[in-house]
């Protein structure tokens, strides 16, 4: 029997409502809240597995292979945060589930207005999530910056949509585009690039990721980034003739290089990983460009999917380590390897993977992405991506060096909290993805054939 098409989204909506209703109680039971959060995410994941690819299509919503694949990514990115939430703040849980719902709606969006709605549906809770996740004024400041930047981006999108509509009469796919339509498509692309964190529209991102709690940053850098990538891909599908597509490799290259260079000079860990996520966004933009320019082949999709899957493990893993170890700056990292060997070893594997060192998943991800770029003839952007990986390796290796080779200063207090197992799980995930070619073929013809 075919499940209701929007079952995963429905599960999440139920989760949001459940959380809010639990909040009505004088002392909302923490355990129940936690269980509800995890259940709704897990439920959505299972339901997504059940929905047949291409099983449903309407003017507004559709469920094709990409939407199912991206839902996996979104829920995979969201799961760690669900596990971290300790159920004390019901509003935070509701905001989190709301944002996840927005993203999964975006995955299912068919036409441009639905894309805009889903974009806002996931952004608004995100602003509050950033503001509320950690006590102190920094969260608020970051949220405000994020809010106004998001607002402008939303406005640009709508302006673009109106121009696009005026030119093509359609709110969805279109063939030829006059300059007016091209301008419209360009503006819409700007909104997508803003969400992804492309240079120079990404100033909000480091502040947001630094101010938010590490696990929230993890969620934003994985789930939301995947949604943003799909948002850009949908745009490319709906407006294949748009002029901005041929600019994507250049934008991606610039983003990758600036992200890496900026991360090189960071002392605070969360801000460093924020810029690292910008660098990876740059690679993704090159990937989307390569996919769009090479006739939107299935291999392009599988490369992007693999990259985002590996990045979900890596980013969530690194932010989980920060949350677990409570370390905030690189100098605090010095010599801490011996104190927490298992977590530190897992963190080292994640860092090697982020740097693109074989035999990790990160290496396979970068290899597949650069492969698509080279195959699409984008030699110079691929070289820029490779250079950005090289620069990024400088600070990843620097952290490994701080972790293991330096002497720890005993004066600073170091009380790691719980959650090391999550870091180790992510590291294992990354290693498994490293053996992807063998895994894929033995699973005989997975999605990425």
């Amino acid at each position, binding site marked *: 029997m075919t499940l209701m098409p929007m079952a995963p989204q429905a599960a999440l909506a139920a989760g949001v409502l459940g959380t809010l209703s639990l909040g009505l109680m004088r002392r909302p039971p923490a355990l129940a809240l936690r269980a509800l959060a995890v259940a709704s995410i897990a439920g959505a994941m299972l339901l997504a597995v059940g929905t047949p690819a291409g099983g449903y299509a309407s003017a507004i919503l559709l469920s094709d292979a990409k939407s199912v694949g991206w839902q996996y990514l979104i829920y995979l990115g969201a799961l760690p945060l669900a596990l971290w939430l300790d159920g004390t703040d019901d509003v935070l849980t509701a905001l989190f589930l709301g944002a996840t719902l927005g993203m999964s709606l975006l995955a299912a969006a068919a036409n441009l207005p639905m894309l*805009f709605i889903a974009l806002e549906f996931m952004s608004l809770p995100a602003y509050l999530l950033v503001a509320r996740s950690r006590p102190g004024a920094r969260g608020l400041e970051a949220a405000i910056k994020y809010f106004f930047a998001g*607002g402008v981006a*939303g*406005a640009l999108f709508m302006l673009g949509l*109106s121009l696009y*509509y005026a030119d093509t009469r359609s709110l969805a796919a279109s063939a030829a585009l006059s300059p007016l339509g091209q301008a419209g498509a360009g503006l819409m692309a700007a909104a997508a690039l803003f969400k992804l964190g492309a240079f120079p529209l990404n100033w909000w991102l480091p502040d947001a990721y630094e101010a938010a709690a590490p696990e929230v940053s993890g969620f934003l850098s994985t789930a939301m980034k995947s949604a943003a990538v799909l948002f850009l891909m949908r745009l490319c599908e709906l407006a294949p003739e748009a002029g901005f597509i041929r600019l994507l490799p250049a934008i991606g290259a610039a983003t990758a290089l600036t992200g890496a260079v900026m991360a090189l000079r960071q002392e605070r860990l969360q801000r460093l990983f924020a810029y690292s996520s910008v660098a990876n966004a740059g690679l993704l933009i090159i990937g989307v460009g390569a996919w769009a320019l090479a006739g939107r082949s299935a291999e392009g999709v599988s490369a992007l999917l693999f990259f985002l899957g590996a990045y979900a493990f890596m980013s969530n893993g690194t932010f989980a380590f920060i949350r677990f170890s409570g370390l905030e700056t690189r100098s605090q990292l010095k010599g801490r390897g011996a104190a927490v060997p298992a977590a530190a070893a897992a963190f080292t594997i994640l860092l090697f993977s982020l740097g693109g060192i074989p035999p990790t998943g990160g290496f396979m991800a970068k290899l597949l992405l650069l492969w698509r770029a080279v195959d699409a003839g984008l030699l110079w952007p691929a070289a820029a991506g490779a250079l950005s990986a090289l620069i990024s390796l400088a600070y990843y290796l620097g952290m490994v060096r701080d972790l293991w080779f330096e002497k720890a200063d005993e004066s600073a207090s170091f009380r790691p909290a719980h959650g090391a197992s999550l870091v180790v799980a992510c590291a294992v995930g990354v290693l498994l993805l490293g053996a992807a070619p063998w895994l894929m073929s033995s699973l005989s013809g997975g999605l990425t054939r």
Partner: protein
Amino acid sequence: MSLTAVVWATTGSLFSFGLAIVVFRRQLLAMLLGLELMLAAVNVSLVHHAGLFDDAEALAVVALVIAVAAAEAVVGLALILRMRRGGRGADAALLTELQG
């Protein structure tokens, strides 16, 4: 001038005016108004073209945009109020602790 040209003129001017407020004003509240102004400008153009192309779906979009603008205003006000309650006033220039 044809009606469409007039519509484009108003939309363009309203939008750029809103954008100017957001980018150059330091008052957070004013910036919030700027945002709403930009979305309103877009509605003008959408309504006109919906009528021109006799397409009800575009009108539905206008309604949705208004709803989204409202939601945005709610979140924006919530944040700005938290700022003022924190005693730091609603001046964008103060928000420079996060940088680099």
